[in-house]
């Protein structure tokens, strides 16, 4: 199956017919750090993805330095 990764955008092939959490473990990706997207849907970690599926692992992290400091 095809997995689309971002930042930078790239694609990798991994074995399908297993749970999302197993795919994430193989790619060493923490579930908390991505959305798992198949088509127009979000997929939970316990769902099985098939060999002909395409899933996107979209990182959810953003930001640089936080804007907490004082004025002036």
């Amino acid at each position, binding site marked *: 199956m095809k997995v689309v990764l*971002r*930042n930078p955008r790239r694609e990798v092939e991994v074995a399908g017919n297993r749970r999302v959490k197993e795919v994430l473990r193989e790619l060493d990706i*923490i*579930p*908390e*750090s*991505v*959305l798992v*997207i198949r088509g127009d*849907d*979000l*997929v*939970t*970690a*316990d*769902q099985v993805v098939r060999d002909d599926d395409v899933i996107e692992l*979209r*990182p*959810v*992290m*953003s*930001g*640089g*330095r*936080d*804007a*907490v*400091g*004082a*004025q*002036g």
Partner: protein
Amino acid sequence: MKCRKCGQGAVLELRRHNAAFCAPDFLEFFRNQVREAIRRHRMFTRDEPVLVAVSGGKDSLALWDVLIDDGYRTTGLYLDLGIFEYSQESKAKCEAFAAHRGVPLVVSTVAEEVGAPVPVIKDVTRRPPCSGCGLSKRYLMNRAALDRAMPVVATGHNLDDEAATLFGSVMHWQTDALSRQSPALPSSHPRLVRRVKPLYRLSERETAAYAFLRRIDYIVEECPFAKGATSIAHKEILNRMEDASPGAKHNFLFGFLDKARVAFERTESVALNECARCGQVTTGTVCAFCKLSDQVKRAVR
């Protein structure tokens, strides 16, 4: 996995809440967390106009979306940092969102206000890009609100942002920063508006899921200068801890806010003056923004 509320198929698991939700019930959960944040910290009332600082990313557009749907009077503020294609694309996302929702958007350009865009400021000051960028953002957000007689600026800082900031402050025991860290900073001077973070109860995975499920077109690419930023490293560490122990980030931040923050509150108040040049608030005579602007204008002249 089934939705905790309705028993239908779930689209998102929230391990820290030991729950999973279908799309409609997750969106309602999300909105309720924002409402709870606003209520608990008295961030703003329905009568007050709210300036929402938007970057084109998932957090700020998700925040704006919730506030519009809940009937608040909002104006978006986009700060054009001049960071190459990243800024062009993020500005286009904000403009498209504002047009689609029929809400006003104000654009302020750092290059016009400071004298040069963020990449040049970085070179001139020889400081990390986030330094001049953060300073300019805080200043311009406050001024944009004051100019429009708006009492409050809302930003899209989420639970991960706040936990990472707290982690960084604790690692260096920056007690000043700890005393200031709060979901709502009240106005401490007539020329300082209130600053609030209505998403502080929601993780960035939750804001990303909200934006995705609401079909909000946001910029997924991160700022090119964020790579290698300490806050990103801290977020990764915290996510490892969260993976091993769901709720770790929440407990860290909320434990601080509920139990520890009070210990760092300043006993003496800092004297605030008005900048001799621009009139905005400073602890000195001339504010840091005016000094930065002078430095940049001298260098690019």
